[in-house]
């Protein structure tokens, strides 16, 4: 069972939200509903589930309803219709006591502008969640100190939060959220207010932290790079509606519609797209033990290439043969491909190698890159043109054209 399941969730702001809900369900657009009922449709028919231990990113532009959506999880916003099942229990049906218990022990939130208490020290801020629960000061401060250490703020316990930089303040926010030891962490644009450099640091540290803590994290962002970096899965939100859910690579390689495509266009794809999605799987290959030069040449002609990878019977990659060498070998009437096998082939690459790391490997080499799994078995080959195409965002034909015409 999924950790969180969101079913048919609607969130509409405004006094006539019931009437607005009817209209939205009938298919009326957001603008029309606003015009007719003065109600804002923030979230429309959201359906998705979040697995235990994953970082689930909700991404969208400002006004897309992502912050409204995350506030439904702990009911800072009261959803208009639908259900949110947490371990099978519906959060929306909880009474005040149950809800308070949920907020105190199961879900914590990290805010864009930190939401810290300026009249309290770092330590007292971090202990806030436990203090609210009525935990003794000694105990809550002890746990808070531990968390402050975890987020790397040791030594700053007695400072006031206003004396800290933005990055440090957000560490306090994170420590405060973790001190109650919740299973679920809601992060609302948690790093958006930070400088780019500090932001990258915080992202790395969150990933590191998550490796240890294994929380279920719902992360809101408007930044696709951040979403791709952090997300195990990403949901893309547009006008309150989810347009696509998938892994970062799925979203990059198969954008669901023009909206997602427009998003994806400006991404540094080279860091996300990996060897496995840009390699050719059906390259044709030769099996060393049984195939000879004639077959090699014929297959090269079929495929329109001048070299083929060679494997053994177990599909373990051995090397490449080139057409010229095969012709020579055929002239000598020799059938042993071993003699013309180029063995000292450039590094073999793993399927999860990002495109950016593939590029340098092509320097001074004529041959494609073999993509192999952990056992050395051949999965496919990556060629220059497709890697360059991926990194630059141009298509292959375009690149070949540029190449033929002698550059730009």
């Amino acid at each position, binding site marked *: 069972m999924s950790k969180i399941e969101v079913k048919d969730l609607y969130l509409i702001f405004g006094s006539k939200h019931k009437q607005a809900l009817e209209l939205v369900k009938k298919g009326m657009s957001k603008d029309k509903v606003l015009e007719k009922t003065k109600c804002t449709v923030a979230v429309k028919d959201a359906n998705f589930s979040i697995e235990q231990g994953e970082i689930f990113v909700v991404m969208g532009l400002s006004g897309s309803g992502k912050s409204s959506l995350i506030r439904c999880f702990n009911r800072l916003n009261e959803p208009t219709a639908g259900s949110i099942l947490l371990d099978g229990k519906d959060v929306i049906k909880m009474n005040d006591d149950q809800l308070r218990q949920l907020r105190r022990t199961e*879900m914590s*939130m990290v805010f864009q502008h930190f939401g810290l*208490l300026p009249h309290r020290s770092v330590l007292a801020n971090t202990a806030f969640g436990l203090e609210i629960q009525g935990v003794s000061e000694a105990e809550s401060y002890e746990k808070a100190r531990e968390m402050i250490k975890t987020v790397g703020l040791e030594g700053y316990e007695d400072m006031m939060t206003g004396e800290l930089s933005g990055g440090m303040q957000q560490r306090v926010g994170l420590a405060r959220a973790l001190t109650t030891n919740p299973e679920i962490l809601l992060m609302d644009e948690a790093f958006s207010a930070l400088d780019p450099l500090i932001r990258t640091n915080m992202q790395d540290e969150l990933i590191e932290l998550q490796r240890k803590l294994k929380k279920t994290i719902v992360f809101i962002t408007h930044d696709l790079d951040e979403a791709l970096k952090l997300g195990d899965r990403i949901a893309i939100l547009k006008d309150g509606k989810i347009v696509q859910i998938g892994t970062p690579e799925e979203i990059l390689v198969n954008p669901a519609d023009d909206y997602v495509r427009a998003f994806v266009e400006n991404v540094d794809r080279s860091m996300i797209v990996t060897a496995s999605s840009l390699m050719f799987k059906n390259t044709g290959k030769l099996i060393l033990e049984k195939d000879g030069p004639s077959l090699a040449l014929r297959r090269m002609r079929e495929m329109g290439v001048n070299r083929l990878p060679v494997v053994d019977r177990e599909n373990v990659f051995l090397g490449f043969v080139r057409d010229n060498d095969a012709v020579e070998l055929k002239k000598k009437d020799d059938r042993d491909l071993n003699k013309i096998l180029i063995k000292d082939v450039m590094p073999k690459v793993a399927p999860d190698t990002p495109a950016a790391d593939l590029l340098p490997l092509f320097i001074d080499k004529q041959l494609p890159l073999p993509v192999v799994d952990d056992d050395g078995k051949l999965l496919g080959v990556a060629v220059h043109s497709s890697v360059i195409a991926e990194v630059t965002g141009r298509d292959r034909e375009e690149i070949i054209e540029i190449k033929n015409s002698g550059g730009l």
Partner: protein
Amino acid sequence: MEKLDIGKYIESAIDSITQHAGPVLDGIALVIEGIVDGLQNALLSAPSWLIMILMALIAYYVQAGGLKLARTKKGFRKGFGLAIFTIIGLFLLLWMDYWEETMQTLALVLASAFLALLTGIPLGIWAARNSKADQVIRPVLDFMQTMPAFVYLIPAILFFSVGNVPGVVATVVFSLPPAVRLTSLGIRGVPEEVVEAAQSFGSTKRQLLFKVQIPLAMPTILAGVNQVIMLALSMVVIASMVGAAGLGERVYSGILQAKVGLGFEAGLGIVILAIILDRVTQALGGLGKK
């Protein structure tokens, strides 16, 4: 057409209150009397030099920014001036033989401000948390602030006859609005995200109020305290028309007898008191901050 006579209805309303709510009014009068008399007796029975030193010390500590900072050089530099001013100012009043009047006025101001804050701050909290209450309270406050202050004296006399009590009542009514308004403003001004953060950790409404909203609104609430005290001081002079004792009484008799000197002397006393009270209450917001 016969003229519309609102005054008649107000009169009859006041009449019926005096008739039916007599015991309640007596109770209120008793409490106010007790507070004012207690304060006046305390201030007047202590030797004047003790009061001077005490007030100078309070001024010094508050201006310096709290007990800790008062021992530092920086704190000394900040607190020193007002302390000296307090001593000199009060000594001047003692020398002019206005000590008793000054202490009476101080007692009236403190009693009125205390009562105004006691009712104003909870009302402000209520108005901040309940928009319906706010909609009702707001126009009432507007009314209270724009109605000429003298008008309050008339029902005050009818309810409580003459003396300190009607003076305090009129002063409380006059100085109440900023306590309500600034408390409400301060609480509404607490950043939404901080309130949400407190809620997201499962705060009850009470925890939210006392751990987050009031502490964060404190500077604004304290600005309200300053306003209340200054308004109370200005009203206490007017309240002397209904027999409230103190410096105001002297100013009033100065007016009646057309004695410029008398009015000016007493007025000077009010100015000195005003400066001390203003600086002290303004500095309250900075307590405990570096």
